């Protein structure tokens, strides 16, 4: 199911409940229990997924990632927004405006 939504810094995001995931020691695999589809995440994506276990604002996520990774803030924001949009598109993300 395709969702069209906008994710801003103020958006509060979290993982949907109807999923199960495995931390693969540097990667992650997510099973969407609604449609039975599996998704894979690389190491940074897996870290974001872990952080999404609790509802957080996008701004807070961005700040946490800047603390943990040596990355340009604008690049980080762009890649984070892209990941969150992907997750939402595949029904894995809850977004509160």
């Amino acid at each position, binding site marked *: 199911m395709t969702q069209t939504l906008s994710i801003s810094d103020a958006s509060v995001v979290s993982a949907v409940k109807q999923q*199960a995931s495995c931390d*693969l*020691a540097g990667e992650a695999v997510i099973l969407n229990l609604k449609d039975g589809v599996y998704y894979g995440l690389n190491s940074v994506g897996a870290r974001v997924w872990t952080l999404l276990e609790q509802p957080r604002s996008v701004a807070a996520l961005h700040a946490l990632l800047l603390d943990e990774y040596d990355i340009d803030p604008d690049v980080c924001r762009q890649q984070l927004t892209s990941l969150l949009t992907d997750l939402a598109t595949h029904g894995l993300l809850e977004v509160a405006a």
Partner: protein
Amino acid sequence: MGQFPGLRPESKLLLCVASPTEEVARLSEVRTLTEFPLDWEYLLGLGEQNEVLSLLYWHLNAANDDLVPPAVMQRLRGVFFQTSVHNLSLLKELMRVLAKLKEDGIDAVPYKGPSLARSLFGNVAFRRTRDIDILVRPEAVERTRRLLVREGYQLATPMTDEEMVAHRQSHYHLELLRQADGLRLEIHWEFLPRNCGHFDASYVWDHLVTEDIGGQPTLSLRAEELFVLLCIHHGTKHEWDRLKWIADIARMIETHRLDWQTVLARARMLGQERAVLLGCFLSAYLLGVSLPAEVLSVLRNHSRLAAHAALIRGRLFRPNRGLPGFREWCAYVDGLTGPFMPKRPVLEWPRNLQYLKAVITPEFNDRYDVRLPRWFSFLHYMYRPARLWGHHGTALFKRLN
């Protein structure tokens, strides 16, 4: 776990990764143990036998240890990934089946399998599971079977109607296989075979809780009930024949706030206090778990658990789960230390008689392989030595010296 002089470093490494104790200390010990010259093939074989390879991979990877050969890490990574995907697929099917049963008005309680892995470890990759187990009420078994047949399952062993009636009277579950891929699902009306004692499923139905699994409210066993059940299943039925079983119990003690008065009362009600105490003893003895005062005070009155625990330990780390020899077993008993040890001498009998008793006492498989009426059950004491002879051959006598 710094004790156990004489235990190979490979075995100590498996004990370390199976322990639920504090992660920083565990990783430090993993690094220390990998500095020994390890027989990696032996380690992998023992880890496979004890079903703890996922935990081994996780810790070796986290320890970031250059001392592990890349080929070994590659193999472990493969096992870990395979376990993850397999367990997730079991979980997916479990949720789908539970939803179907609910639509049909059938109450079902999942236990063991992927739901247990999730409950104990959070990450289902850590615990290898083989199948899906669900408990339904006895009167719902046939409806459940028909629903699952519509969903693509078939009986693992085809039965006529008459055979089904006989099966329902003498067994405790039905085994089904999904036709597409052989996925195994067991429909239980009882939890355990009668040889394990009577674990009253009707009592359990009156004491269920609701748990959120994948966003779905799901009927579940109370933690205390699950703990007692696992001690009986892992101990009485499977004789603690793999480290995975002991790791389950240890992890439940560490992560679930159990009401120990309820646990012990339920164990006594079922006549399974010894099974529960042995599970607790093994968790402390092998995996360093701290036991609560209520359990310690009762343990001190069960001195003979130590002899049994020593036999179990020897079997865990012997390829093909063979019998530890008498001298090896004595060394294990001599090494038993801890606040959970009884105050009076561990063994009232001479060592050789204690060992003989531990060895010849029939286990679940002895009683299950050869079903005998109760008044002939003494014959199991003859069957067991014959079975051990078949397993060890003439080496059995060397082990008894």
